[in-house]
């Protein structure tokens, strides 16, 4: 997996620099603005680290702003970024409504707009980079159902309703459920923040209503780990298997220890996304072509292979 990823990165980097070989510095980009929805979420924090680490190597300054999940805050922050004369804008929209306004503002300045994770309807950036969701979620649920022997009662704890990952991860998981007639989807509930406390609460209520649940899919590691706690509290740790998504730092460490019902996740190539975003920004600034969509896969992560990702997050 690592080698595939590495060659992928190398290819993109080459593509990015092909058009900039003769340009001064790093293709005329010295300052990048990065708008992040919420740094409390490890997923976004990892992307930020990816952007910052790679940009530092290239000698590019990164200004990051955190919208705390509020779209209006994010629009204000983008105005402030543009005031500071950024040369490229990496935009991760906040909230379920991906606002088109930041893209329009940046377009008015004539700078590259690179979307990560999602893109606003009607105002796409120069490229969008997001983790593949459907197939990876399929793999997680497939692994879970396999461990449960292909049958049992299952529940799904969704992320924020209406967001792309929420919709697509369920789509992927539903495919496996439909392939296994022995598996019955008995309940689903939506969280607001993808957070562990919500996962705990939702799982507790689900266990109350359906004490014979044996499979739980949380659409984010936070949700899954919260659910794992609830299962432990209910004394059902041996009867239930739980899958998550994202490959957060805390989740990977929990998988390495492998002492909870939470036993599988899909690790997203978050740091790689940051690198891809910086490369795309440089490429666009130098009129090199970039694909409209760049979709790195998430890697199925179990107790066996989690350690390597703890060591170095992809």
């Amino acid at each position, binding site marked *: 997996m690592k080698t595939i990823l590495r060659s992928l990165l190398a290819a993109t980097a080459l593509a990015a620099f092909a058009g900039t070989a003769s340009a001064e510095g790093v293709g005329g980009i010295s300052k990048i603005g990065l708008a992040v929805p919420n740094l409390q979420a490890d997923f976004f924090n990892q992307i930020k680290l990816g952007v910052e680490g790679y940009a530092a190597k290239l000698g590019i300054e990164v200004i990051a*702003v955190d919208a705390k999940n509020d779209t209006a805050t994010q629009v204000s922050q983008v105005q402030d970024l543009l005031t500071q004369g950024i040369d490229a804008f990496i935009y991760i929209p906040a909230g379920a409504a991906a606002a088109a306004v930041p893209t329009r503002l940046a377009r008015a300045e004539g700078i590259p707009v690179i979307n990560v994770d999602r893109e606003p309807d009607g105002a796409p950036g120069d490229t969008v980079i997001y983790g593949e969701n459907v197939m990876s979620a399929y793999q997680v649920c497939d692994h879970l159902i396999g461990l449960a022997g292909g049958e049992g009662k299952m529940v799904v704890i969704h992320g924020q309703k209406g967001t792309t990952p929420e919709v697509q991860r369920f789509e992927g998981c539903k495919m496996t459920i439909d392939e296994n007639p022995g598996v019955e989807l008995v309940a689903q509930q939506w969280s607001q923040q993808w957070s562990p406390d919500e996962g705990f609460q939702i799982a507790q209520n689900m266990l109350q209503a359906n004490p014979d649940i044996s499979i739980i899919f949380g659409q984010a590691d936070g949700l899954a780990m919260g659910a794992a706690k609830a299962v432990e509290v209910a004394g059902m740790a041996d009867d239930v298997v739980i899958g998550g998504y994202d490959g957060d730092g805390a989740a990977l460490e929990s998988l390495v220890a492998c002492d909870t019902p939470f036993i599988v996740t899909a690790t997203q190539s978050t740091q790689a996304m940051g690198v891809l975003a910086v490369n795309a920004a440089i490429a666009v600034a130098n009129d090199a072509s970039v694909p409209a969509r760049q979709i790195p896969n998430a890697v199925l992560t179990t107790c066996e292979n989690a350690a390597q990702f703890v060591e170095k997050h992809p």
Partner: protein
Amino acid sequence: MTPSTGPTERARIAEWFSLSGATGPLIGLLLLCAFLSFATDSFLSFRNFLNIADQITVLGIMAVGMTFVILIGGIDLSVGSVLALAMMVLGYLNVVAELPMAVAIAGALVAAALCGAVSGLLITVFAVPAFIATLAMMSIARGLANMITDGSQIIGFPAWFNMGAIIRNFGFLTMTVAVMLVVFVLAILFLRFREEGRSLYAIGGNAEVARLAGIDVKLTTVMVYTVCALLSGLAGVLLAARLDSVQPSSGVAYELDAIAAVVIGGTSLSGGTGSVVGTIIGVLVIGVLRNGLNLLSVSPFVQAVVIGLVIVLAVAAETFKHRTR
């Protein structure tokens, strides 16, 4: 606080400029601006001040309503949720039901005002403490906002709607900022020169005395909560224009920003003293601080600490001033 029944022309003008206890925050604001002008290259520019004006629109309008509520000794925790509800009603009426924007805006404002009226009636008729009544409304309005679209966003407003928040008429004035300025002027005039405005101070000072003095305390209280909610609704309409989309998760914790702005502006949480001018300064302090910290590239985590410290400083300075008097 001198009643404004028939002051001379000169006193009238003097009153206009009196800051009624907001001199401390004003000095703080000026110091902050001076510091940021030296610390960053990009702060002291016409364009950045226009940005700040854009950025404080929603908070500014909500804080005016909150000032009225706090002046009568109340509190309104529901403004953020009411804002979200108004936005969703607007989106539903305009985009889903395809009604003209004017009807949609009217509908959004009516929905918001109704929330405020219900809170006001709970407080006056059923004697529910304002904190609890508006806490309940916060939850109800948020739930209703989510129910309209089952939690998802609405996009697809007419193009001119978003342009109202972007195009700067005469080179500086967006439609949304213009609305905020009108609200500011009307609120200042109302509090200073209208009998009903003066009665807010009387109710906040002592509701019983105000009642004995012939003020209809209950009616005024209901009206104040209604106006506060109406202004939140108006802020919601402007926010929808700014974002060119509506979502039910908007405005979470905005009530705390509004309360912070009012308190920084020198309005007493126990009611009876304060002013809209002070609140405007409070709003500017928060707006300039957020803008400045972004321009300084201060880490978001540190920003949260700094804003908290400013609130503490503002209130501590006010308390200290009262004690030494």
